[in-house]
């Protein structure tokens, strides 16, 4: 579980995060949503320890990040997996080498053990015949799967995803969303996804934190989001006519 208390982050005079407090539970797909410029990416980078913040605490299963030494922070980061928006695969390595990389760095496995583990996670993300392709030869969907495989290969406790289905077609996006949710449950990880894809939010958002101008405006689940009266989130989520109709139908159905 990740616990955030009163988080403040500024860049110069610009106050980006204004006292955010929330918890992200393990075994659940937690989502951070909000408009562009609302502070989602800054929040995620604070959670990852890539940004230092002025005030507040972030604790990972009771370990307060700010109180750790640099080496302890690096050890904690070794328990984190991250799927970047652009996948961030290493250009100089092929797909299987990318997946084996965390194992090479943090385990004492033999080469054949690492290959077995890499093959296992690549099969888990349904990538079977692309092991020796370079990242530039893989499609966007394949790259995302490889990024997920690399993120989970070392059995992380925390999985972070920044816009995991941006740039993907709707069908592949759903496959990626479902894959993340299945893996989260299977490995009992604390998963935090940064997204503004409403399909993802409705599909897998078991806990949703909505940010507006650096403030936590609302939190709840994908079920609560249909019923909420909070104008900020309804304006954001139901900005398209399609979603407005879906909400109306849902409310009529439950009434």
């Amino acid at each position, binding site marked *: 579980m990740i616990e955030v208390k009163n988080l403040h982050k500024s860049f110069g005079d610009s106050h980006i995060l204004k006292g955010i407090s929330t918890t992200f539970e393990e075994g659940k797909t937690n989502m951070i949503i909000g408009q562009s410029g609302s502070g989602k990416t800054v929040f995620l980078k604070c959670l990852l320890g890539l940004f230092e913040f002025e005030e507040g605490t972030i604790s990972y299963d009771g370990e307060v990040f700010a109180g750790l030494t640099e080496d302890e922070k*690096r050890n904690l980061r*070794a328990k*984190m997996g991250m799927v970047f928006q652009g996948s961030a695969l290493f250009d100089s390595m092929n797909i299987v080498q990318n997946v084996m990389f965390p194992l090479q760095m943090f385990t004492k496995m033999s080469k054949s053990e690492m290959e077995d583990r890499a093959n296992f996670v690549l099969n888990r993300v349904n990538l079977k015949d692309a092991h020796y392709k370079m990242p530039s030869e893989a499609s966007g969907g394949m790259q995302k799967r490889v990024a997920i495989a690399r993120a989970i290969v070392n059995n992380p406790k925390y999985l972070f995803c920044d816009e995991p289905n941006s740039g993907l077609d709707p069908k592949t996006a759903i496959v990626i969303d479902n894959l993340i949710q299945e893996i989260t449950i299977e490995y009992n990880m604390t998963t935090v996804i940064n997204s503004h894809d409403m399909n993802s939010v409705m599909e897998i958002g078991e806990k949703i934190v909505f940010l507006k101008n650096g403030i936590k405006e609302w939190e709840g689940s994908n079920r609560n989001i249909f019923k909420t009266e909070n104008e900020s989130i309804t304006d954001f989520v139901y900005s398209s006519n399609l979603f407005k109709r879906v909400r109306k139908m849902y409310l009529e159905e439950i009434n």
Partner: protein
Amino acid sequence: MTYLRNIGTYFLMIAEMFRKPTKWSVMKLLIFKDIDDLINNSIGIVAFISFFVGGVVTIQTSLNIDNPLIPKYLVGFATRQSIILEFAPTFMSIIMAGKVGSFITSSIGTMRVTEQIDALEVMGINSLNYLVFPKFIALLTYPFIITIAMVLGILGGMAASVYGGFSTLQDYITGIQYDFIPFQIGYAYIKTIVFAFILATVPSYHGYYMTGGALEVGKASTTSFVWTSVLIIVLNYVLTQMLLT
């Protein structure tokens, strides 16, 4: 103020480069890869430039010696001094700032833009040690390149001298042996090692701390070349003043 901050960040980067080392089994592969990319892949261009510049130095020297009282072997002497003292260590380093420096800045800069460096950091890897330290070690073999430049520069001069009819082979060989001071080779290698450190770290700094997108990677490469060249020229002056006077 910005300059001071950049200088401070550069020295902090160097200190961080030596902390939390990457596993040796991974690091040795990175070092071999960087030796291949930075040193082996530069041998061709270094050999080509050195041979022809050596020839040009010989021709220019010969054409400027029109006094019959000046012995012909001075052509070889002047070529040796120019090549060993300045051309091979200093001007070859400026050429390498363009070739190797741009490669380092653009490859690290692209990793920054595509979040590959963030991926390393998130995994708990000291990205500076992983990316910059192998380049620093690889460039410790840089004197090998400079030795090739020295030998081929002098051979190029010899070829131009003999086949161009500017002096005889015997005169040229006498010239390159004339008044030989072994410390001058040491001076050239001291400069080479200092320039190797600059070639590894300054372009890495510009790549690592760049912000923006693809256009900024190009700008960072240009800035890196300018600053690497400026530092090499300034340090060349300082080292010459310290070591030869």
